[in-house]
């Protein structure tokens, strides 16, 4: 089994609602994969299960060959599985560089020392070097996303989970952030799993998309395949009758991914 992440039969219920239902998939090392699904599909819950913030009712998670169920969130990070949050909540009242230093203090990397220098290097890499000494309260939404990625990257993850990194960003901020993610993927050989509720952001970014609806995986394939998949179209059109292009962010006839 060469997969970096191996998920089998993962299920999570909230009372009568099954937020994640019998989800199984695997990620190969170095892969960059997207998780697509409308709001409420269970994407964030899936991340919470993978990162130990919630305990699944059923199913197994294998990461780097060891099971993760019941392992505390900070221990999972220290095994090399890091995540960002859909709602980024930085350490208010601290500077940008202090926010990243906290990641450098994780047991996994703390022995490397030079915490402040490492934090500043990472801020340079994500394009926040000039704002290192600013209070984090003053950052724009797009900068907060970069900061969060920097704070996770200093823990030297093998797998990085990004929860809707483009949500709430203007079009002028989306492309540079996508370029950063592509760059990190290429230069670090980092395995990345990204959540998005629109397909458009995936077209130039990922080779494989896992589509979810009502907690279940409904389709897997390249972005170009996914956009034509009948169950994906149904999932997106079935809600409110809006046109598919507005909801997916891309028209099926224009879909041309990198695959």
């Amino acid at each position, binding site marked *: 089994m060469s997969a970096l992440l191996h998920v089998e039969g993962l299920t999570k219920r909230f009372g009568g609602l099954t937020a994640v239902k019998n989800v199984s998939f695997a990620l190969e090392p170095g892969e960059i994969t997207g998780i697509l699904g409308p709001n409420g599909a269970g994407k964030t819950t899936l991340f919470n299960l993978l*990162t130990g*913030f919630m305990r699944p009712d059923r199913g197994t998670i294998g990461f780097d060959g060891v099971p993760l169920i019941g392992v*505390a*969130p*900070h*221990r999972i*990070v*220290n095994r090399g599985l*890091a*995540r*960002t*949050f859909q709602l*980024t*909540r*930085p*350490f*208010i*009242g*601290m*500077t940008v*560089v*202090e*926010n990243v*230093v*906290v*990641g450098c*203090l*994780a*047991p*996994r*990397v703390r022995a490397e020392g030079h*915490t*402040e220098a490492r934090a500043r290097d990472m801020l340079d890499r994500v394009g926040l070097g000039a704002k290192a*000494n600013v209070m984090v309260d003053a950052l724009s939404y797009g900068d907060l996303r970069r900061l*969060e990625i920097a*704070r*996770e990257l200093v*823990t030297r993850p093998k797998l990085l989970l990004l929860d809707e990194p483009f949500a709430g960003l203007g079009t002028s901020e989306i492309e540079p952030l996508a370029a950063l993610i592509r760059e990190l993927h290429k230069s670090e050989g980092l395995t990345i799993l990204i959540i998005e509720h629109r397909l458009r952001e995936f077209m130039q970014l990922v080779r494989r998309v896992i589509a979810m609806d009502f907690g279940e995986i409904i389709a897997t394939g390249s972005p170009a395949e996914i956009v034509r998949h009948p169950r994906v179209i149904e999932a997106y059109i079935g809600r409110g009758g809006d046109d598919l292009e507005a909801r997916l962010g891309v028209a099926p006839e224009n879909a041309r991914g990198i695959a």
Partner: protein
Amino acid sequence: MLAWGSLTKTDVIGAIVVIALLSVVPFVGSRYIVGIMTVALCYAIWASSWDFMSGLTGRENFGHSLFIGTGAYTAGFLNVSFGLSPWWGFPAAAIIAVLFSLIIGIPTLRLRGPYFALAMLSGAVVMQKLSIIFSETTGGQDGLNGLSPMLRSQVSAYYFTLVALVVTVIVLKFIALSPWGTILRAIRGDEATCQAAGINVNFYKISALMISAAFAGFGGALYANYQLQVGPDLFDVALSINIIIMVYVGGMGSIYGAVGGALLLIGLTEGLRSFSEYRLWVYTLILILILFFIPNGVIAPAWVRVREWIIGRSAAFTRRASA
């Protein structure tokens, strides 16, 4: 040491000036003033130890008197009931207070919500009740009396308390400026984000409470050994609230602000004696005005301003000198 957290030369000079001013109190003040100031220094130890846990991590503790009272009674028992030298009271008080911090902190600090704050509050209330109920060992309402004095003169007790405060502030400030302090402030920012950065949040919260309890218990023993008496009022909710107000007035999370807040409010209480029966009213009014109009506190923000002014002046002076 981390550059942004390290002290400036101006901070060190400011601290030395304050210590020097406190050191001359016995030379210029009456016996009465020295007594009040000794108690004020004890309050400063309690307030700065509260600030270390609650000011840094944001988890408010509504029952700091639990640690103070257990520390004071530990010192009292060892001295009065077991006849040990008063000096044994200090380490024993710190250890017993830490035990209590573990009993309350381990089950409640991992939970969100008000459980920790309420458990501290009820812990203090329960201990106060127990100290009254088991009057045969605790002396009930009268408490334990007749501790043997650890130092002969009142002035030496004052200086001993001052040294204890200085050591407390140096230790707590040193930890607050270290990577430990960075993590505690990050916990205040957001616990889930902290976990996502690979930090064992519960470990740091519990350790911070243990350190806070150790100094509060030590401060309780100090107070007992100075008053030569301990009583159930040391577990009072009012004492805990008073300490919280001192830290708010001083400015949260800075450690030295808590010291300033304690000295300021004890000074204010004494200064208002001329108002006789209106004293409590005036005191409360001043507090409300401060908390309402200066929510970040008085002492720590004021010092930050003064420091900027001094640094600005000395920079201007250097420029002029070199021109």
